[in-house]
């Protein structure tokens, strides 16, 4: 297909050099480290991150203005966090002129739509200083995660230390050391339906996008995509924030990223086609024009 990885300037495998960040990071601690660096160096005034909601492992958008708040949001939560809902509020109530935001692929799309077609996003378009996109195959409603953890894995939500999707399984690790691996065959039906029309796997529209796929355990694959992204990334690497390796020199490398991206896009394109003939002479909407 050719464009499955989006436009990018460079791609590396990277890991934060900050031990504190890595302790609770999902993989290489890329997002947290970049935001901490950007915050401490005046590149951003604060960032919309995905913090802890009102139930164990429930995600919610959170506006972080300190390193502590950024660190509190480490790790992936695998349920919906409406990041964009705070976009205007961050520039108004919080008064940010330079905003950081992290989100999954569709949220990067929403962000760019908000900038190019700011229908209800007064004064937002020119205030986004650093948008970090996360690789994403699909997301789950909170109740789905609860069902997977409690019913399928047989664990209490509050006992979970880490959730992870990798190597074809959904992994639940508890504070007491249990590890349960659910085959993705089980998780599929719990996925958020809206994800099945998504044609982006590696957050093509982030300034920088990152995810575990393609890099060894504990490392992250990083695409640097825009001028803004490149500027911040180069400064951060120059300041010694990350260990990096050329993506060509790590296993499984870009080959796996490309394969999974194509799998997602092909599957979802097919889904969109099926929607067009869903009923009898009636179809479901296709949002793409």
């Amino acid at each position, binding site marked *: 297909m050719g*464009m499955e990885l*989006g*436009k990018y300037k460079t791609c590396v495998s990277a890991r934060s050099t900050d031990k504190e960040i890595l302790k609770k990071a999902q993989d290489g601690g890329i997002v947290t480290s970049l935001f901490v660096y950007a915050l401490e160096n005046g590149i951003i005034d604060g960032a919309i991150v995905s913090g802890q909601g009102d139930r164990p492992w429930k995600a919610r*958008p959170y506006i972080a203005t300190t390193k502590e708040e950024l660190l509190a949001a480490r790790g992936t939560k695998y*349920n*919906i*966090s*409406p*990041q*964009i*809902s*705070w*976009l*205007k*509020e961050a520039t108004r109530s919080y008064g940010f002129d330079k905003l950081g935001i992290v*989100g999954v692929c*569709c*949220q990067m*799309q*929403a962000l*760019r*739509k*908000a*900038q*190019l*077609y*700011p*229908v*209800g*996003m*007064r*004064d*937002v*378009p*020119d205030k986004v200083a650093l948008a970090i996109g996360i690789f994403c195959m699909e*997301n789950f*409603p*909170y*109740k789905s995660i609860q069902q997977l953890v409690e019913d399928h894995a047989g664990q209490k939500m509050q006992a979970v230390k880490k959730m992870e999707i990798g190597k074809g399984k959904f992994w639940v690790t508890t504070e007491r050391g249990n590890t349960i691996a659910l085959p993705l065959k089980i998780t599929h039906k719990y996925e*958020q*339906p*809206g*994800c*099945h*029309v*998504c*044609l982006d796997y590696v957050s*093509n*529209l982030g300034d920088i996008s990152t995810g575990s796929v393609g890099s060894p355990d504990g490392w992250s694959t990083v695409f640097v995509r*825009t*001028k803004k992204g490149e500027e911040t990334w180069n400064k951060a690497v120059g300041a010694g924030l990350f260990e990096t390796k050329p993506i060509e020199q790590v296993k499984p490398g870009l080959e796996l990223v490309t394969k999974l991206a194509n799998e997602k896009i092909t599957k979802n394109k097919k889904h969109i086609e099926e*929607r067009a003939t869903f009923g009898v002479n009636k179809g*479901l*909407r296709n*949002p*793409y*024009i």
Partner: protein
Amino acid sequence: MPSDVKMEKKVEVSKKEEKPVSNKITAGHVHLSGCTGCLVSVADNYNGLFKLLDDYVDWVYDLTLADVRHVPEMDVAFVEGSVCIQDHEAVEEIKTTRKKSKIVVALGGCAAYGNITRFARGGQHNQPQHESFLPIGDIIDVDLYIPGCAPTPQQIRNVAVMAYLLLKGNDDQKKLAGNYLKPLMNLAKRGTTACFCDLMYDVINQGLCMGCGSCAAACPVRAITHEWGKPQGQRDLCIKCGACYNQCPRSWYSFDVMNEFEGIMDIIDGAMK
């Protein structure tokens, strides 16, 4: 004069205004039943408005800003407000606007969708019979919508720059501007009603919502929150402006435009420098 008061150097009379750029497009603001908030949003581009007026647009009609009594010929008419069908003047004005403009833009929620004027019931001094207000698209053909209450200064700026490129640019610029404007032109064909319900009908019920939160941020009356990651609208608060639906990335989305976001933002920034 006391000796400690310094006389400031007299400001030199500024240079004579240069000849207007002949390449400009002509545009104007047609004011129907709206609150002038849309026009204020145009002005809220601050220096950007001067840049637009200096280099790209001759502002040929505007009851509040230009000394012109009747709707003149123009390339682009930005119409604010809905049409009171009991107001003969308003009906004539919108018809004339259609006749005399190449492109008619519904500027803001009232012109596009009726917005708050949908709730009008008349009975107000001194024209109590003025009770029925329609979006301009119910009276004339409209080419393009800029929804929102108020539409944002940046959205107006983006459309103005793109309209200029479409009418005066080179082939590449025309294509880019065409791609950019196409979704907003499609909106003009889609219809004249808007509501939080659009999100329910065309996004959520259609299995397209992924809980990004755009709608909640876009809503000017904070009627939308997210419960369990999905939008909930307090429909009694909804003013029917269409911002939530149109901000949603799953209502309409153009890869041609969005994949070029960095280049397009550079072009707009460059045009405004």
